[in-house]
Structures are given as structure tokens and as C-alpha cells.
């Protein structure tokens, strides 16, 4: 039985009760690979991300937040007041329709609305309900409040990042994006169990736990700590593996990053510097003898300041040294590589106009990533969803609006 599916997730229905970053990124991933996502927002206000910048031309406007526009491509949007009885009834009808419900309220909210998993599974036994929260659905910190820096501090490797003088968070909100990515993995796993085994279930994502077992060192540091009987990975000015530079260094017009602190890279460094004599230098025989690091830097740093970051990148890469220019957002958007691969995409939005967005996170041979529609205006698809899907009339809509339900 071979069916034609335009995109991999074309027959997946997602009810999206998420806001801000982690939840919306999870449902964006599903939407971009074909899932039909209906985003439910509070009438009049909408997702809080609509009120966070950056705004188009710095003009605060519910339909012009770059953060919201980016995170909600390919979703349909409706408004629904879950604090009304009728709102709850309508929501439950949508739960019947859905394969997946994703929400990222504080854990107390869904039960307080009478929308806990135990209740919803009575309505739809195959439902996958993914709940994303700061600390998870259980445990003593369940109701604690958090923000990006707090999540990274408690979950991630913040104790090891930054200079000895003070820990430093990662840029922007990458921890919350990562939680959304992991939530999408778990949701897909649960969806497969639902569609092919008939099992519905509740998926509990704790953002700090997605960091505690993160390949961004937290998991390796935690196990190293246990292995070594208590070695903490303190912050340092640089990595201390071998004598080769590791980290960020100034060049003529900016900065260059170097990585790859293993012996296999040493001949490549020598090749990059075009100084074969270094291979014979007895002081550089034991690369782990860091007392000679200064001497090597005295050779390397003056060499680097003569080069532009582009030249330094070319030289490093030609020799097989993992090194590259540190680029600004402008340089990223104009980067020849990402553009040749067509990474950035232009999307037209009724209020924000035509803007370039970050594009597809991976390319598939079939079932491709696709922009079918821009982020929804607040309540844009009320008629489509309430009338076409749930069978309300246009007159009903007027009443629902007057009653403050939508």
C-alpha cells in the first residue's frame, strides 16, 4: 500500500498550546516537515513572544515580533479563552481531532484548567501529550520560576563557561531552543508508538534535564566528575590539552577560533604556519608539556595578526586545522556558504512583509522542509478551524467573540 505524502508529517495533527520559545520551536520543527499545527492563543493578547523583540523597524506590534514570526512559521492560529466553560469544551473537541498536544505552561496550569493528561486521555486514548517545563512535572522545584540564564545555570555547564572571574551564559535563548529540539525528538518517538502501536501517553520534558545530559559538555563533565572522584571543570582562560592554541585569537580585522587539541593536528599546524622546522624543534616534542606553550604562541600570534579572518580561515582549512572566522550576524546572513546552499528563505507575511528567515535545519531527499505559510496573525484561522473543522456557523463565531471565548 503506497500512499503519496507530500511531506513526511502531512497526516499528523498537532494541537499547539505553547508560547515563548521552547514549545513553539518544538511545534515549528513538526510543522516545517508537514504536520498540521493549530496554535491556540489567548484572545487579544496571544503568545507572549509577540510582545518580545526584535520588532520590525523597532515598532512594537503583536504581528511584527521577529522572535514570534521566526518560531511560528507553518502554523495555523486560533484564539480561545480557556478560562471559559465553552472555551474548555471547544478545546476538548480539538483534543479529539489531534494526534499530538504540546504545551509549555507551568505544570500547575493544565490541571487547574481541568486539562490534565488523565482527563484528556479519556477523550482521546491515543493522544500524545508533550509537556515542556522548566523543571519537569514533578519534584520539589516543579513550580519554581526560571528564565534562560537560570535554566543554563542549573542544567548546563555554566559553572565551566566564561572567565574565572564570573560564569557566563550562552548567547540568546539557545537552551530553550535546545529543549524544544529534544522535545520534538521525544514527541516523534511517542507519535510512532501512538500511530503504530496505538499507545497514547504523557511526555514530560524538563528543560534542565535536557541540559544535564547535553553533548555540550554537561554530560561528559558530570561523568568525569564521578569518575575522577570530584574533578570540577572550572572556568579557565583557555583549554589546557596541548601546546597548540585553542580558543579565540585576534587577527588583522577581527577574531579567529581554533579547535582540535589533539596530537593528530600538530603536523597540520606546522603546515599551516609553513614552518616545517618546528617538527624538529625539541621543545615541541612533547605536545602535552605546556611549559612550552608560550614559545609557540610567540610564533603563532604575530603570524596571525598579519592575516584577515578570511585569510586565516583559508590557511587553517587548507592545512586541515579546525579554525575559522568569528562572524557577526550580518556576516552570517551574507555568508557565501549558507547562501550557496540556499539556507536563508524569504517569507512574505501580511503585516511584516517580505523578510529573510533562517531556513531548513536538515535536508531530506523526500518529504522536504517547506514554508507553506508564514506565522499566523492573532486569530487568523478562527473561521477555518471553528467553522470548517468543528462545524460552527459564522453566526456562532460572532457570539463566541461577543462572549469573549475567541
Amino acid at each position, binding site marked *: 500500500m503506497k500512499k503519496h505524502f507530500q511531506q*513526511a508529517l502531512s497526516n499528523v495533527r498537532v494541537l499547539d498550546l505553547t508560547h515563548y520559545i521552547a514549545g513553539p520551536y518544538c511545534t515549528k520543527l513538526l510543522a516545517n516537515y508537514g504536520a498540521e499545527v493549530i496554535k491556540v492563543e489567548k484572545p487579544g493578547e496571544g503568545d507572549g513572544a509577540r510582545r*518580545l*523583540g526584535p520588532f520590525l523597524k523597532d515598532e512594537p506590534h503583536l504581528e511584527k515580533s521577529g522572535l514570534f*514570526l*521566526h518560531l511560528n512559521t507553518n502554523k495555523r492560529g486560533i484564539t480561545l479563552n480557556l478560562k471559559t466553560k465553552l472555551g474548555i469544551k471547544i478545546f476538548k473537541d480539538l483534543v479529539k481531532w489531534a494526534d499530538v498536544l504540546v504545551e509549555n505552561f507551568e505544570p500547575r496550569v493544565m490541571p487547574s484548567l481541568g486539562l490534565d493528561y488523565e482527563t484528556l486521555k479519556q477523550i482521546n486514548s491515543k493522544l500524545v501529550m508533550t509537556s515542556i517545563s522548566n523543571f519537569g512535572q514533578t519534584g*520539589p522545584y516543579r513550580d*519554581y520560576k526560571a*528564565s534562560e540564564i537560570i535554566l543554563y*545555570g*542549573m542544567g548546563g555547564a555554566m*559553572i565551566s*563557561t566564561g*572567565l574565572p572571574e564570573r560564569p557566563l*551564559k550562552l548567547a540568546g535563548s*539557545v537552551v530553550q*531552543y535546545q529543549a524544544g529540539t*529534544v522535545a*520534538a*525528538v*521525544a514527541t516523534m518517538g*511517542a507519535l510512532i*508508538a501512538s500511530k503504530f*502501536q496505538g499507545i497514547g501517553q504523557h*511526555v*514530560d520534558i524538563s528543560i534542565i*534535564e535536557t541540559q544535564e545530559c547535553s*553533548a555540550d*559538555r554537561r554530560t*561528559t563533565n*558530570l*561523568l568525569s*566528575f*564521578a*569518575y575522577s572522584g570530584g574533578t*570540577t571543570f572550572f572556568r*579557565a582562560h583557555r583549554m589546557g590539552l596541548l601546546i597548540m592554541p585553542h580558543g*579565540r585569537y585576534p587577527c588583522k580585522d577581527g*577574531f579567529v577560533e581554533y*579547535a582540535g587539541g*589533539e596530537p593528530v593536528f600538530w603536523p597540520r599546524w606546522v603546515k599551516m604556519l609553513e614552518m616545517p622546522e618546528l617538527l624538529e624543534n625539541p621543545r615541541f616534542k612533547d605536545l*602535552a608539556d605546556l611549559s612550552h606553550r608560550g614559545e609557540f604562541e610567540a610564533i603563532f600570534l604575530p603570524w596571525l595578526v598579519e592575516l584577515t579572518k578570511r585569510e586565516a580561515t583559508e590557511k587553517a*582549512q587548507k592545512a586541515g586545522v579546525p579554525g*575559522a*572566522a568569528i*562572524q*557577526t550576524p550580518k556576516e*552570517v546572513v551574507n555568508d557565501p556558504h*549558507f547562501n*550557496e*546552499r540556499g*539556507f*536563508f528563505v524569504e517569507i512574505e507575511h501580511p503585516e511584516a512583509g517580505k523578510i529573510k*528567515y*533562517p531556513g531548513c*535545519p*536538515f*535536508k*531530506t531527499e*523526500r*518529504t522536504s522542509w517547506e514554508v507553506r505559510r508564514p506565522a499566523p496573525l492573532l486569530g487568523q484561522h478562527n473561521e477555518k478551524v471553528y467553522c470548517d473543522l468543528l462545524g460552527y456557523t459564522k453566526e456562532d463565531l460572532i457570539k463566541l467573540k461577543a462572549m469573549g471565548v475567541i
Partner: protein
Amino acid sequence: MSRLPLEGIRVVDITVAWSGPFATMLLADLGAEVIRVENRRHFPPATRGTMARPTKSVMAGSVGASYPNREAGERPWNRFSWFNSMGRNKLSMTVDLAQPKGLEIVKDLIKISDIFVENNPPGTMDKLGLGYHVLKKVKPDLIMICMSAFGNSGPYRDYKGFAPVMEALLGHTWLRGYQNSDPTQTGVPVYHADACGGATAAFAALVALYHRKQTGEGQFIELSQAESMIPHLGEAIMDYTMNQREQGPLGNRSPFKAPQGCYKCKGDDKWVNISIGSDEEWEKFCQILGNPGWTKDERFSDMLVRYKNHDELDQIIEEWTKGHEPYEIMHLLQKEGIPCGPVLSEGDALSDPHLKERAFFLQLSHSEAGTHPHPGFLWKMSQTPPVVKSPTPCLGEHNDYVYRELLGKGEEEITQLKKEGHIGTDYLPQII
């Protein structure tokens, strides 16, 4: 409890370093049988060690702490924390891909598998003869995930890139830094691109698997780790495409909250993060501090001026935090609904009451590394909860299973394969 979602799905795993093993760990946690294909003749960097047989000076350095009791042991590759923290539920076989027979063995394994994941430099699999166009003939509905730093096309295709190199080119390094400072002043590198690339690759595998279950079609997936991470910086990218504004590093601050920062506490290298996003939270914070005179100061009376006078405010707050322990401050502030939390060291996390109550850490026993608490699962599921079926495999630990049970090799063949260097449990002596 039900069957795990990916039970019955076999994954052939030729991944190295961090992002690939992270991706396959997530698939293994969902129940897939992940078989690592490893080569006794090749020691990939940053995978089972920085060196197969670390020298004394390497062991004396920071890498030494990655081995139990700082001892490399007879087979150091089985005792390395970087690898062992992401190896649960996987199996390991050895085969020499440089020999034609080795390639045939891998193809035979792929023939009876579902997903093939690799994260070697682009072109490596083609050169070996394990490109998708070849494997598709061996296994028509195969899903192949090819993850690399920058993707299989474009000017950076062949760039050598660990996560820090990707993050330099994709903008994270520029945006991550202290305010009014430059990128040289940020300490050791970070590896978000590995976490992101790995999780995104696992998502890609599941999307393709879902498609295959519906249509019977396999497919090739190309993942550029750098491109998988650019969306994580979406707002900074959009600020440029919408407003031509170049965002710079914000340090520990937030564009929407003030005060927000990482403050020194009582004790050695103890820190607390506080993040105040509304006037209501600010007033409660001032109350907790006992409403000292400065809280009435005009310079701090609303969010805008607090932002403007943030440096000064940070100093005053730190005067207070220095007298208290991080957990104490967290509970004090959280009781009033103020977002706050300690910067947890590894030891703090291992004894944290919340993680303990959620049974996050897994006490796992490994035949060559001993018994230790390991970071646990990234999700909880009510019907198909992840389980540990086996700890991280030793090199070649499952050769018997793969060669005899899966591939049906007899005694004679096995003896021959051992002689030829395919089957074994160590790296060849010449490998450093």
C-alpha cells in the same frame, strides 16, 4: 509498560566525537538497537579518548580526569567518560573498513538494518564505497543520515569543524560574551552545535522513519550541524534581516529583564542567577532584602532605569548575595515567585534534591570503568519510559552477537576475520 517505540529498529552507527554519538544515544533511548561500527586500525579524535593510549603527560592534564581514578588502565578506550556518558544501550562491533572484506561485512549488516548514521567529513563514505547510491541497492528502504559540520555542498563543505568552529562561523561565538568585551575574553569553548546537531539528527531520523512506516520509502538525509543551529539564534538573525542591526554580546543580561545576572555567593566559586522581569518581582525582591534605602533610589525605580544603571545595581545586589549561599537565595526568592537559581557545579547537580526526586541520575555498572552515577534520560514517558538495557559497550564487545547471530558467520570465518584484524577488542598496537 509497552514496547519501546523503536524496538525492532536497527541502527548502524559510524559516528565520532560528540554530536553523532549523542544522536544515536537518543535513538537507543527510544528503543532502537544501535550497533556502533568501530575500527581497530583507526582512532577517531575526541571519541573513545583523545589518544588510544594516553601518555603520562596527557593523563596528568585535564583529560586525565576523564578516566576512573585518573587511571587509563589496560584498555583506556573503554574507560573514557566522554564516550561512556553517551554510550548506554548501544552495542559495539569492530571491522576494518580499509579492507574490501570489511566493507562487505558492513554492507551485510546494513542489509538487515533500518537506519545508518554517520558524521564523518563529507565524502568519506563515498570514498569508502559506502555512499547512499551504493547502500540504496543493498537496502532499498534504508534511511541514511549524513551529518557533517557544514553539509555536503558549498564552499565550506570540506572545512574541518568541531562545534566551536561551526559556532564561530554561524554567529554564536560573536553573540556569546561579556558586555563591552571581545571574543578572546570568553574562556574555554562551548559545544552547543554538538547538542543541537545531535538532537536535530535524531529528529530527522524519526521523521524519515515515520515516512517510511507510511510509504515504505527510505531516504537520504543531509544535515549540516551549523545550519541546524542557526535557527537557535533566530531572533538575532531576524534583527539583522528586519532592521540591519548587528547584535553584540549581552553577557549574562537579557534584553527584557533588569536586573538579571550571575552573582557571587558565600563559599568558594558559588554563584546564583537572578532574573527579574517585572516591577512586581522587583518590589518583592526589595522586600526580601528588607527594603534598604537604595531600593527607593530613583535610579532603580522602573525597568528602564534599572537597565540603564545595571552595573551599579549589580554591585549592590552582589554585596547582598555574597553573604548567603546559592540554594538559600533560590528558596528565599522562589518562595516569592522570583526567578532565581544556583549555578550548579557537577557535585551540586549530583546531590540536588530535585534531580534526586526525579531519579535523573542512573547508577550504572561498567565492566571496565566501575559503578558510577551517569546523567540520565532527557524525557519521561508514561507508557514507554526509557530504560537502560546495557551500559556503554567496550570496544568490540558485541562482535560475537553481530558476526555469529546477525551475520551467521561460522567458527572458521571468525578465526580468519580475527587474523585479518577485523575482530578484536583493542586498537592495533601501532595506534597511538
